[in-house]
Each structure stands twice: as structure tokens, then as C-alpha cells.
């Protein structure tokens, strides 16, 4: 199907513009793949509420709820209608940007999410910055001293960071910096940027571990290339070779992974927020889980998955834009 589509586009545009055509058809291909995936994610989240074993209404209201309340809730959620109609209604509501209303508080899910979103974005962006600031020098340091002590230290450190669950690192940091030293607040978001430090470090450490390994390995790969040897032969300083010549080429896989990780940060934020009582999407999700407020859970899951999907798409497109080999290969298959 995609092949035919490509063919039509290829013919429609002048042969002289073949290069542009190939890029365009890669982008279109990727977008065409995106649509069924989004639809699949939407469908899967719709069925969440129907996966509840037994009666979802009973699970939400408890066993000794009044019959009238049950019927009211069932009607409100539309669970009394045939499943096809329910799915149609769900899609129509989604297209209006309506994620339903919270059973617990009666507020629209969209409002609840948008009230909590800034805190999570703030946390995720700071964690991302922390990871970048830590990972790049560490990765470069390891690559420049390959096989020597600094390399071992950096790579062991990253392995430890990678194996450290953030719901343990968080309490550790709290015990050390908040309880023993008393430098930073234990939890919450009231103390401005001071209260941001520990959650961001907790969330960013795992990512820094992954990134530093990647910076190291992709730098090492580039450092073997001919143009690096040419630069070395010309007498360019080691520092300039690493940071100017090699880094610009090693950056591509790193940036791609950054995009992928940015989506994953949102999930990591759920556990981190739980540790620090950070008033973001994660704590909203946990509150909703405890209150069996499935509409809020559903909206949250859908939002995180959509962000992640979009990030993946952007990563792929960025890769295609920056690396000609990808778009040629993409246009060549099928």
C-alpha cells in the first residue's frame, strides 16, 4: 500500500526533483505509519475500562453503593450502550478534546491534566538538562581515555546509575541532603527551584547514564573515521578534533535518543513524583489509581502515549533530515 503511494508521488513530481521526492515520500511514509499507531493506542486505552475484571461500576463505587448511583454512573459513562456506540462516542469526544470527567471530583479530565502539566514539564525539562550537562563531559572524558582508568570510572558510574531505581535514589537523596544536611526541602513544590533540585537529579540520573554511554560509543565510532585522521595529520588540536569535528557527527544518534528519552521521562516522572509528592501528572495518576478514577487514568495514559509517539516521530524525521542514508534507504525498500 505504501509502495503504491510512493510510486504515485514519485511520478507526480518532476524527475529532476527526485531528491526532494525521496525525502518527501519518506516523511509521508512515516506519517502514514503514525496514523494507524495513534488509532491503535486510542483503541487500546478505550478498552482499558472494559478490562476491569467483573463490574467496573462496582470497582469504582464500591460494593455497597446504591442502585440509583450505579445506574446514574453507568449512564454517565455510557456503559449501558452497545460497545460500538460507546467507541464511536469516545472517538467523537476525543476529537473535541474531551477526555471525560473525573468520577471522583466531577471536574473535566482535561482541566485536571492541564492544572498539573506545568509541574511535570518543569521537572522533566530540568531533569533533561541535568542529564545533558552530566552526560556529555562524562562521555567525552571516557571516550578520550578509552580503556584507561577514567573510562572505567565513567562507565562503571553509568552502569550503577542505570541500575539505580529512581524510587530508591530519591529517598537516598532525601535522607542525605534533606534530613541529615538539611540543605534542601524533603518534598513538595513550594520552595521554588530549591525544591526542584532533588526530583530533577533523581529523574535525570538514569537518563544521564544512558546518554553518557551513547556519547562515548558514538564518539569512538566517529573517531575512527578518515576525516578525523586527516584532521589529526593536519595538526588540529585534540580538543578541537573531539568537540568540533567528531562531536558534530556523533551528535545525531545522541539527539535521536534524547527525543526518545524525553517521552520516557514522563513515565519515570510518575515514580519520581510519588517519592517527592511533586504535584504533577504522576501524582495525579497515582491519586486517580487509588481512587479508581479510571477516566483520569485513561486520559493520563493517552496523553503520555501521545507525547511519546510524537517524540518518536520527530526523532525519526530529524534523523532522516540530518542523515541522507536513512531517507535513501527508506525510499528504496517496499
Amino acid at each position: 500500500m505504501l509502495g503504491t503511494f510512493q510510486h504515485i508521488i514519485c511520478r507526480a513530481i518532476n524527475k529532476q526533483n527526485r531528491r526532494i521526492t525521496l525525502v518527501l515520500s519518506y516523511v509521508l511514509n512515516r506519517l502514514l505509519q503514525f496514523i494507524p499507531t495513534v488509532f491503535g493506542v486510542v483503541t487500546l486505552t478505550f478498552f482499558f475500562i472494559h478490562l476491569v475484571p467483573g463490574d467496573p461500576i462496582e470497582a469504582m463505587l464500591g460494593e455497597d453503593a446504591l442502585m440509583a448511583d450505579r445506574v446514574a454512573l453507568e449512564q454517565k459513562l455510557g456503559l449501558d450502550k452497545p460497545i460500538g456506540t460507546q467507541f464511536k462516542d469516545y472517538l467523537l469526544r476525543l476529537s473535541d478534546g474531551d477526555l471525560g470527567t473525573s468520577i471522583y471530583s466531577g471536574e473535566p479530565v482535561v482541566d485536571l491534566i492541564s492544572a498539573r502539566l506545568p509541574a511535570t514539564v518543569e521537572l522533566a525539562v530540568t531533569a533533561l538538562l541535568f542529564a545533558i550537562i552530566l552526560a556529555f563531559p562524562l562521555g567525552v572524558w571516557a571516550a578520550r581515555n578509552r580503556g584507561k582508568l577514567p573510562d572505567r570510572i565513567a562507565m562503571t558510574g553509568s552502569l550503577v546509575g542505570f541500575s539505580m531505581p529512581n524510587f530508591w535514589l530519591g529517598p537516598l537523596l532525601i535522607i542525605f541532603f534533606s534530613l541529615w544536611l538539611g540543605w534542601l526541602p524533603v518534598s513538595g513544590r513550594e520552595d521554588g527551584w530549591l525544591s526542584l533540585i532533588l526530583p530533577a537529579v533523581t529523574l535525570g540520573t538514569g537518563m544521564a547514564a544512558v546518554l553518557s554511554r551513547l556519547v562515548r560509543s558514538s564518539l569512538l565510532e566517529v573517531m575512527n573515521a578518515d576525516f578525523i585522521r586527516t584532521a589529526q595529520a593536519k595538526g588540529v588540536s585534540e580538543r578541537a578534533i573531539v568537540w568540533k569535528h567528531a562531536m558534530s557527527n556523533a551528535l545525531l544518534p545522541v539527539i535521536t535518543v534524547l527525543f526518545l528519552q524525553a517521552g520516557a521521562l514522563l513515565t519515570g516522572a510518575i515514580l519520581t513524583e510519588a517519592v517527592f509528592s511533586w504535584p504533577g501528572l504522576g501524582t495525579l495518576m497515582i491519586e486517580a489509581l487509588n481512587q479508581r478514577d479510571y477516566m483520569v487514568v485513561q486520559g493520563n495514559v493517552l496523553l503520555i502515549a501521545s507525547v511519546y509517539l510524537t517524540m518518536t516521530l520527530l526523532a525519526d524525521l530529524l534523523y532522516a533530515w540530518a542523515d541522507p542514508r536513512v531517507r535513501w534507504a527508506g525510499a528504496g525498500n517496499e
Partner: protein
Amino acid sequence: MNSRRAIAFIITGFAAVGVFFAANMQDPFNINLTTLLQPPVFAGEHLLGTDELGRDVFSRLLLGVKLSLFVGITVAVVSGIIGVVLGLISGYFGGVVDHVLMRITDIFLAFPGILLAIAFAALTGPGVENVIFALCLMGWVGFARLTRAQTLSIRNRAYVQAGEISGTSTPRILLQHILPNAAAPLIVEAVFAVAGAMIAEAGLSFLGLGVQPPEPSLGSMLREGARYMLVSPHLVLAPGLMLMSLVLILNIMGDRLRDRLDVRL
């Protein structure tokens, strides 16, 4: 060589400590309100102290490790088998089957990390079985992708074609000709999968979605311990350190295995 020896040493050390203390192990469920929140005492009655209900932390820790390993290995094996079978079918037959299966994996991959497991465990209610089910639900995808890629690269090799021509049955080709040659990266993936499932189980239990009290899990011990951080930091330190060590060992094993088997993941 040295680090391998170190790993062996650490594992043996863990096992020895476990065996030594399991001999006169305390009852992990015995509530004793006269001895609550005691600090760790070496060679005392409670090696790692007691928790908020006066229960022995060390014996609870051992039970938690047992559960953690059980969940990790079960999830890796079950999701591994499902993923390998689907990946073999997808890669070998291609066509519509492949297309449909790959779109399904795309959908599952759209949920980052343990999000899907969190949502699923929340819906089905807490409990070990539900945690295992939720983790398998997302675990098979990686195996399926990897097996498919391997199968694609192997299915046109001469020995596979020779098997086809000589009339070998398809299951036999898949299981005896393709699978053994695709196994190396799968084994490495399985080791990382055990580590991943152990962290995920602890994460779910930390959120209160996993194992239910009084049954101990490293995650639920962390959750309960976090409330007494100020007075008894050992309640947080012990289970976390244990979990991290186990995961670290598995990750080092995976790394070594990857270098040894020379695979790129």
C-alpha cells in the same frame, strides 16, 4: 577476567550470607510491637533491625529477593517464549502476518516504560499474578522485534534453503535451523529482561499496585520504609541496596555476555 571474578564473588557472597542466616531466620511475619523500628545490630537478634511493626527486616528482605527473582525470571521466560514465537512467525512468513504483527508491536511500543503495566495492574487489581501478567504484556514486544530482525537476516541463508528444498517441516526449520542461530542476542536480551522486570515489579509494588501486605516485596518495603525515613533510614537503605545490587549484577552479566557473544543490540 577480574570483574568476572568479582561478580562471581558477589553472587557467592550473597548466597553465603543468605544460607548462613536463613538457618536461624526469624519469622518474617511475626509482629512484635515491643521491638519496633530497631536499628541494625550486627550479630544481634535482628541483623538488619526491625520495621514499623517489629518484624525482622532481614528475613523480609530475603523473602522479597525471592519474590523479585521469581517475578523477574518468570516474566523473562514467559514474554520471551511469546515474543520469540511471534517474531519467528513474523520474520519467516512475512507478508500480511508480518505487517499486522509489526503494527501491533508499534502500538505497544507507544507506551513508554512501565506505563502500560501501571495502568494494567491498576485495572486488574494488586497481586503477584497480575503484576506478572502486566509485565509480560509489555515484555514480549522487545523479544518479538529482535527475533524478527534475526529471522529476517537468517531465513535466506543456504542452510535454511537447503532445509526447505529437502522438505523439512516448517516448525523444524524455525526451531532447529533458525532459532539456534538467532539465539545469542536473545539470551543477552533475556538477561536484561530479568533485570528490567525486577525493577518494574519493585516500581509497581512501590506504587502499591504489586504484592499486597503482609507479603514482602523489595518495592513495598521501600514504600513502607519511606514513611519512617527520618527515624529508621535502614528501612529504605536495605531493600534499595539489595535491589540495586541484584539489578547491577544482572546488567554486568548482560554486558559481559554481549561482549562475549559479540552481539549488537
